[in-house]
């Protein structure tokens, strides 16, 4: 089982201005319309979807983009969800899996559990095989098919909102050679969701971008450095090389791929390449200068507590995480954690011949109060919960069973669990 985490933060609602008032009956305390809309913005998504059936006015308001903004503003931190992905072998060919929203708080409180999975969360009937990313509770999915036997493929995307159970049709078709990686994010300046497709081939990168709703791919400038963890196609680890934060996509990169020698890496060789989704231009950020010595294995990037983080294995004994406290400010890199693999109860085997992409631990998320850090270990199938205030380490363990009409059946074989954090979110236009 593998755990992976993508945190998303906000989603939005605002109030429409022209709703018809509801027909009201006497003998009850009647609340004015604007007060009712306020009230609705405090409700969870499932209730709101149900209450669309209350009357025509509510049906309109609840899916109105302005109400969406208000709802988003209400609950930035309320009950953040952590999405578990279970990987299983379905009836048909192809590797599809299920993505299940699960509250972070429940995960922390109860580390061993049995999960019953609603078949709705399976990607199979959505005909998508990959998670591109999540943002504001929306999950971007992708799929492709081979056009010929020359590795030419046709790619497409779908945008899925598991909270409202709505999904977009396939969009963003394009034909490309070799492997494209996709990343997903939100442009704060225009309020649009964007997908970035990039490919690194023959020492050149091709980058193209699409705004959800436009359906047109636009080529933009290539990445100024080479992304590390390139084409690391395991779904579980897609979030280690590039993360979304504050309206930008951030890649861990290296200037010259030919200089890359995993036996002899120093932090100075790496940098962060940040694509601003609004201006569609790149910024580059250095990593903390105070890290010296040789790293064992390749570092990864993640987002913890709303900050960009950089983590690595140090001298084969320790795991270190740095946080960029102020995004974009290189001086704000602060060492967040240094802990030995031994204390984390993780066994690392650095003597194995290693590939370029070797890394041991991946940070998943930090609890709201900053006390608990969740990590996943590549070599192991469990997640580790580390309590920062009392240094307690706990392993998590859970099984997943799919709900079928004939009761629960365990999945066979490959039961990997990957995690993505998403928040319950309502959107429009889906």
């Amino acid at each position, binding site marked *: 089982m593998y755990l992976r985490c993508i945190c998303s933060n906000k989603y939005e609602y605002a109030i429409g201005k022209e709703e018809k008032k*509801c*027909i*009201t*009956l*006497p*003998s*009850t*305390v*009647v*609340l004015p319309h604007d*007060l*009712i809309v*306020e*009230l609705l913005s*405090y*409700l*969870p998504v*499932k*209730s709101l*979807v*149900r*209450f*669309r*059936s*209350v*009357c*025509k006015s*509510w*049906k309109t308001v609840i899916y109105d983009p302005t109400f969406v903004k208000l709802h988003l503003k209400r609950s930035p931190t309320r009950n953040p969800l952590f999405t578990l992905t279970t990987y299983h072998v379905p009836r048909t060919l192809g590797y599809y899996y299920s993505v299940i929203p699960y509250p972070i708080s429940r995960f922390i409180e109860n580390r061993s559990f049995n999960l019953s999975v609603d078949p*709705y969360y399976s990607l199979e009937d959505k005909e998508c095989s990959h998670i591109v990313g999540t943002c504001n509770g929306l999950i971007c999915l992708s799929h492709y098919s081979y056009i010929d036997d020359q590795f030419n493929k046709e790619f497409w995307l779908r945008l899925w909102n598991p909270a409202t*159970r709505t999904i977009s049709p396939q969009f963003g078709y394009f034909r490309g050679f070799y492997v494209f990686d996709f990343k997903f994010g939100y442009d704060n300046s225009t309020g649009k969701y964007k997908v970035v497709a990039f490919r690194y081939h023959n020492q050149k990168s091709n980058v193209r971008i699409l705004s959800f709703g436009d359906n047109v791919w636009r080529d933009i400038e290539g990445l100024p450095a080479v992304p590390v963890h390139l084409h690391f196609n395991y779904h579980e680890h897609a979030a280690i090389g590039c993360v979304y934060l504050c309206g930008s996509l951030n890649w861990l990169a290296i200037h010259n791929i030919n200089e890359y020698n995993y036996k002899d890496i120093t932090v100075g060789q790496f940098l962060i390449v940040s694509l601003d989704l609004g201006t569609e231009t790149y910024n580059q950020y250095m990593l903390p200068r105070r890290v010296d010595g040789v790293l064992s294995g390749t570092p990864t990037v993640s987002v913890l507590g709303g900050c960009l983080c950089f983590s690595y294995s140090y001298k084969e004994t320790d795991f270190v995480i740095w946080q960029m406290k102020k995004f974009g400010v290189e001086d704000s890199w602060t060492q967040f954690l240094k802990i030995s693999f031994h204390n984390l109860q993780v066994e690392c085997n650095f003597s194995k011949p290693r590939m370029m992409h070797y890394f041991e631990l991946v940070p998943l998320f930090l609890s709201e109060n900053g006390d608990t850090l969740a990590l996943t270990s590549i070599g192991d199938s469990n997640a580790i919960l580390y309590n920062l205030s009392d240094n307690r380490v706990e392993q998590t363990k859970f099984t997943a069973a799919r709900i079928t009409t004939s009761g629960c059946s365990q999945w066979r074989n490959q039961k990997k669990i990957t995690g993505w954090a998403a928040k319950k979110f309502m959107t429009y236009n889906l």
Partner: protein
Amino acid sequence: MASSSSNLISLKTSDGTVFKVERALAKTMKTVQAIIEEADANIYMIPIHNVFSHHMDMIIDYYKLSVAGKSKEFSVEKLDNDELKDFLLAVHYLNMEDLFEVLTQAVADRLEKKSVGYVRKYFGIENDFTPEEYAAIRKKNDWAFKGDDIEPEEDEEKQEE
């Protein structure tokens, strides 16, 4: 007697009761604050319409708890639905941000798992969907009507009988 130089402000509720409250509490009521600021001279007594003495009692309770850092202990459980809505209206009128949030959350919590039928009665809203329209929207969102201790709809209960 109260004047703006003392620490107490006099508020007169709709049922004629006068409450002397700390200036700090009056500050949390943006409506009252606006009245004080707009007054040319020192205002003697501020009438607060739509607010009754039982509302003020609860407001003062909440204020005392929040000053002591115990605002989480404030509960409106003992209020029935109409009383809670009524209180919400009063606090809305007074424009008290924190308490308003507490009360709207309390109402939302009461409604979260309720049926559509219950919600209509709660707000006094009539169903203006045709049976076909309702059936269509119901079918489309059927998943939202199930599971998680959600109250079943009345029409379903009848069918089960």
